[in-house]
């Protein structure tokens, strides 16, 4: 058992990063920045995984691998959507994109 596992501090850091990511998502109107904040949130989660992987074995780290692949896929598709919307409305501002209105 390594002498200092930094479990508490890393979890706290992960929480703070996650909150910042959430704040970013809520605040920014620019779609791309929004995606970046989502990436930030995902990183925070990775950190938590790693912090606990020290106790639960390799499972945690493998999970981070999967998270990364998902993040990549999500970023790719997300940006493609933004491209398509941009071509259509010449803007990435989320405010006036409301095709989903019920």
């Amino acid at each position, binding site marked *: 058992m390594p002498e200092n596992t930094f479990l508490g501090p890393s979890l706290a850091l992960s929480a703070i990063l996650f909150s910042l990511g959430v704040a970013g998502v809520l605040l920014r109107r620019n779609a791309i920045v929004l995606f970046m904040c989502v990436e930030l949130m995902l990183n925070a989660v990775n950190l938590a995984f790693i912090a606990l992987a020290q106790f639960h074995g390799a499972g945690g780290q493998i999970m981070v691998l999967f998270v990364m692949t998902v993040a990549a896929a999500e970023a790719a598709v997300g940006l493609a959507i933004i491209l398509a919307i941009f071509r259509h409305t010449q803007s990435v501002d*989320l405010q006036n*994109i409301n095709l989903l*209105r019920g």
Partner: protein
Amino acid sequence: MHLTHMVWLAVALPVAGFLVNGALALWRPQAKTAVSVVGAGVLLAAFVVALGVFAGLSNDPSQAPVIVRLWSWLPVGRLKVDFAFQVDQLAAVMLLIVTGVSSLIHLFSIGYMREDPGYARYFSYLNLFVVFMLVLVLGSNFPVLFIGWEGVGLCSYLLIGFWFSDKVNADAGKKAFIMNRIGDFGFLVATFFIWRAFGNLDFAYVSEHAATTLAPGGAVVTAITLFLFLGCTGKSAQIPLYTWLPDAMAGPTPVSALIHAATMVTAGVYLVARTNVLFAMAPVSSAVVAGIGAVTALFAATIGLRQYDIKKVLAYSTVSQLGYMFLGAGTGAYASGIFHLATHAFFKALLFLGSGNVIHAMHQAYHATHSHEDAQDMRNMGGLRQYTPVTFWLMLIATLAIAGIPPFAGFFSKDEILAAAFARGADAPVYYVFYGMGVLAALLTAFYMARLMAMTFFGENRTGERERAHLHEAPWIMTGPLVVLGVLSVIGGAINLPPFIGGHAALEHWLEPVLEPGLRFSHLAMPTGSAEYVLVGAAVAIGVIGLWLGFRVTLGRSIPVARAAPPDRGFARVLSRKYYVDELYDALVVRPLVWLSRVVLWRGVDQRVVDGAAVNGAAVVSRLAGGGLRLLQTGQVGVYVVLFLVGAVWILRAVMR
């Protein structure tokens, strides 16, 4: 012994008559002779059977209640109701009266209804009526009696509304049925009380176990008898359910004679006699019965004074005479009640058929001259003595009988009832009041009968010159039965000659076994010796004075023809308008009930409250909810994200706890 078991034949014959005539009415209405042969023939045969049963019973009265069980009708657990007839002295007497009078009236109808297109239909209804009346009289338990009870109500509905094409008749029929039905409600509730108390509905069982099961004078027995009496008021047209009888005159006259004078309306008195044990055990109810009887007698007699339609006068007279019978029953003198029932059947049937002759003659006269006068209005008659002499003399006999002039039948029966009321006064003073009312009613009866005879047969003829030539006596087929009834009205008193003039009260002894259970509770000491003579003398005097006054007052003033008659004024108007009782019922009961059901129940509760609020309301609520939720889908991604995160945070809080 075997003769009494033939009783079912007495019922089967009219049933066959009904079916045959019914078929003829539907497919061969014009076969009039066949219909009359079947209709009247069946009744005469039934009368012969009745005589046989009476003979069978009289030579061996000991085996009194002979139960002839036909089939098991309602077998449910402890309840074992059989469709069975009970032949005992009371039933035999009623059997004779019903079949006898019906046969005479059937013969009369052959003449009276000859030109009517619905001839076959009329006879099938009349036969059906006799079937139900016999079932009523012969029934051995309450439900079977109830079949007859409602059955006769149905037939009176059909026969009153016989000429249904105009609304008035149909309305009268409906009114009769519904008012009877209100009475039947009382009968049903009484039956349920009896079932709860006795666990058995047979008359024999009830009268046998009454003393042991019910506490004399107790609440239950009083309730049973009061509800039974409610049934009787409905059927026998006593206050408050009497207004249907005068309107029932809308039916053909023989119907009024048969149903609304001789048979159906007496069902109430028969029921009281049949359940005399219960009434004897409930002095309160007996007082009520006697009271209502006396009041109705007086009340109806007063209305009879100012009626101009000859049949309406007789109708109110019937209501009044029924009041007498109930007065008799109420005082415990059931035998005299039945006796008056018998004599009344004779002379009232005679009066109605006589008025039938008069109306028939008037119709032919007006028909011949195509004038549209009211053939039943006495103001259009007058001096018919020389045109219809036979009818006049026979109706005179009946008038004397009803007025209670010795030696006619009415005198003996009415006198006995008055005597009984007076005797009962000894231990319950209220009966003196009833006696007083009875005497006053007797006076009025004599008065209005005299007025009727005077306006119809005496004075100068008001029918009109040209019509006068066509006025002539009815054919023999119609006057024949009248003669028979006339004879019966004269010798009718012999059935129950009181001891003080040598008779030995045959009817009373004959009904002894049936009325015996009741006597244990209310023994009646009839007045004897000098008191009796005084009463008899008073009764006769009343009758004579009434008649004399009636003739004098009516013939004194000149009577204008109906068309020219001025409208009545003041109290006379109230009387001729029947104290506005019909309008009162209409305003107090019918109109509010219809308003309640239309406005309050149907529109209000049904459509607005239950349908509007609950059912359609639920639909509206779900639509609104849908609309509300739709607003949430704004299309703004940001909104979705916020909602998403709020959810996430909420779950987190729950987990972290």
